[in-house]
């Protein structure tokens, strides 16, 4: 019996800021005080506030300590755990002057969130099957296997309105139904989990796998029963070592408890799951390429139809769902489809996890009901754009998505509304941009990624994305023409219509959406040879205002290429032919005499 639990975040974010050592220090320090039989130290998954890691939560008070260092550990143990005095200075505060000590659940960051897929992340020890069972884990599987027919399971998933969280938003129940009904020859069928999260900046699936791996195993087993499959595969990137390790532990524990394997709960139903590690190719997140890779072949997509529900893995009926989709299933079974359908909007039910990044105060992971406005996510939960800068746009859906500009700040975030604006919910990456971000440069960044990751099987994607990238590069170097903009748009539309797989078809989205909302910025690059955000170096010039320059020589001394000349107490001058536009002089100047444009 433990009177208090110390939860140390073991997600990738906090691990990289040293939470592993913090965990060990707590164990040692607690032992040194003889409290090891009273206070439990537990490693958990992600709490979501990755920017403030390492994170430590102490229950029962639910005290949320952020940015904990090794030196803080003895103080927390001797003050909080031994004497019951919360260490105020380490408690997470929303504002500098905020002196109130709040429990994590009362912060703005946590208040507007609604955790369904992430409900166990940061609460349970992901390496303990017992803790998962203690939060009603495997209860849904028991109910499904002993009380329900496969058809009833599918009906519940259909009625919940759950749609694929990997990006496309296809109704999950429909997918299962097709896989059950279309082929009924008694041969094998397969259940796959797409954990090949490849969008830059996205880490929703990783956090679920790291924080609550059993939920994926349970959900896949439920789906196996529903469609008549006995084998599942989880395709996870090798770049997620913590997730892979915890999945392996979870699979081992589930087999030991007989929750995977033969004759589960004595019902005669067999199901087992194996891991397949991806080598990091972006295209392997596309469903047909993913299955080809599981088969041991080079990961390349193939045309659909036939759809995986008819002919997928090993040419057999297969369902493939994303990690976050799976994480919703057991709770839909336990709480009923009505419970799930009551969250979200008319056509987009439930919640969605977003990985907030870019120019935002609270970098991290948030789960919100579908239909929450972009403004609420960025300002209320995300804490707004830092340094007093203005919100310019949010990029959703990664390289397959688009930008939502400030004039649509109040858009409801769901499948339909984002599609109307030419973006997508996607897997859940959300990158916030402020006035210092150049939209042409952003489009170029994503295209560079797509060019690198194009598998090369089809011409529109292999050559088309390269040509689009070249045009963008030309524009950012000040060599673009207005005709280039028209050619870019025409090419983008062609690729959208003709690429083989979803990745190629969506690759032009970053260009199309920035052209739609920020055409003026493109035109400024082309016509005025100017980058309004001051990002594109070829179009930049740093100038010293002779009236403001005091001749202090600070900039000249800092300039790495010695292109600033002038005598003491006389205005200095920048030699534009030598300048590499690093901006050091502007940062150095104390008199605001240097401007860029």
């Amino acid at each position, binding site marked *: *019996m433990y009177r208090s639990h110390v939860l140390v975040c073991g997600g990738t974010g906090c691990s990289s800021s040293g939470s592993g050592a913090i965990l060990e220090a707590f164990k040692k320090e607690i032992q040194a005080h003889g409290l090891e039989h009273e206070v439990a130290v537990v490693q958990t998954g992600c709490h979501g506030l990755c920017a403030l890691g390492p994170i430590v939560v102490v229950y029962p008070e639910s005290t949320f300590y952020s940015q904990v260092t090794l030196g803080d550990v003895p103080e927390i143990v001797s003050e909080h755990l031994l004497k019951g005095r919360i260490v105020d200075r380490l408690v997470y505060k929303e504002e500098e002057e905020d002196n109130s000590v709040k429990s994590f659940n009362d912060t703005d960051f946590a208040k507007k969130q609604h955790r369904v897929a992430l409900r166990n992340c940061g609460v349970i020890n992901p390496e303990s099957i017992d803790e998962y069972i203690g939060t009603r884990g495997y209860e849904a599987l028991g109910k499904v296997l002993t009380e329900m027919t496969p058809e009833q399971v599918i009906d519940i998933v259909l009625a919940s309105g759950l749609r694929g969280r990997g990006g496309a938003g296809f109704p999950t129940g429909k997918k299962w139904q097709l896989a059950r009904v279309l082929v009924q020859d008694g041969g094998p069928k397969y259940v796959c989990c797409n954990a090949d999260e490849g969008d830059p900046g996205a880490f929703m699936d990783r956090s679920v796998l790291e924080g609550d791996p059993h939920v994926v195993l349970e959900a896949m087993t439920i789906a196996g029963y529903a469609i008549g499959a006995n084998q599942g595969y989880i395709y996870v990137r090798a770049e997620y070592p913590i997730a892979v390790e915890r999945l392996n532990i979870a699979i081992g524990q589930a087999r030991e408890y007989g929750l995977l394997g033969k004759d589960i709960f004595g019902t005669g139903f067999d199901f087992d799951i194996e891991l397949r590690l991806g080598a990091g190719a972006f295209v392997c997140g596309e469903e047909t390429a993913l299955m080809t890779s599981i088969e041991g072949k080079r990961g390349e997509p193939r045309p659909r139809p036939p759809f995986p529900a008819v002919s997928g893995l090993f040419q057999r009926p297969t369902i493939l769902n994303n990690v976050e989709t799976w994480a919703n299933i057991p709770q839909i079974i336990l709480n009923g489809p009505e419970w799930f359908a009551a969250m979200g909007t008319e056509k987009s039910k439930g919640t969605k996890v977003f990985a907030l990044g870019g120019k935002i105060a609270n970098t991290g992971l948030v789960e919100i009901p579908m239909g929450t406005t972009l403004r609420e996510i960025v300002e209320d939960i995300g804490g707004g754009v830092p340094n007093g800068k203005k919100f310019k746009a949010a990029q959703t859906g990664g390289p397959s998505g688009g930008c939502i500009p400030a004039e649509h700040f109040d858009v409801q975030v769901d499948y339909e509304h984002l599609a109307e604006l030419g973006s997508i919910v996607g897997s859940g990456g959300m990158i916030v941009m402020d006035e210092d971000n150049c939209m042409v440069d952003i489009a170029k960044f994503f295209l560079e990624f797509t060019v690198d990751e194009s598998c090369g099987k089809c011409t529109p994607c292999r050559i088309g994305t390269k040509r689009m990238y070249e045009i963008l590069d030309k524009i950012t170097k000040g060599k673009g023409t207005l005709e280039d903009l028209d050619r870019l748009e025409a090419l983008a539309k062609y690729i959208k219509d003709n690429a083989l797989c979803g990745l190629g078809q969506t690759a032009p989205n970053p260009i199309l959406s920035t052209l739609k909302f920020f055409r003026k910025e493109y035109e400024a690059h082309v016509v005025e040879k100017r980058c309004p955000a001051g990002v594109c170096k070829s179009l930049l010039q740093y100038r010293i205002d002779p009236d403001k320059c005091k001749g202090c020589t600070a900039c000249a001394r800092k300039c790495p290429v010695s292109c600033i000349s002038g005598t003491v107490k006389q205005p200095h001058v920048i030699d534009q032919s030598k300048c590499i536009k690093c901006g050091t002089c502007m940062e150095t100047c104390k008199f605001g005499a240097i401007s860029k444009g």
Partner: protein
Amino acid sequence: MKSLEELKAIRERMQNQLGVRDKDEKQTRIVVGMATCGIAAGARPVLNKFAELVQEKGLKDVMVTQTGCIGICRYEPIVEVFESGKPKTTYVHMTADKAEEVFNRHIIGGNVVKDYVIPATIEVGK
């Protein structure tokens, strides 16, 4: 091989343990003074006894926590019971055995154990 019953048994056992991490507002808080004065007077076994009993009985509405010095050190170990809508009760000179009695009669039974409650007037200078 686990049966449904075995699963249920694990669930119930773990739910009581994980109750410590429950995020809902608790109706009742048992607060044990755990400053140096409290610890020296033997507050630790009192705190642990309460924590153990609450988890054993699986009381979801009760939170056991600690606090610093309450200021009347000669009455330590001190336990305060906060119940929503009721005045707080302060128990003094507690022991693990008294804690069990308070738990059974007050927390479960709903009757304040008057014998252990702090005297109405604290006599100063004695």
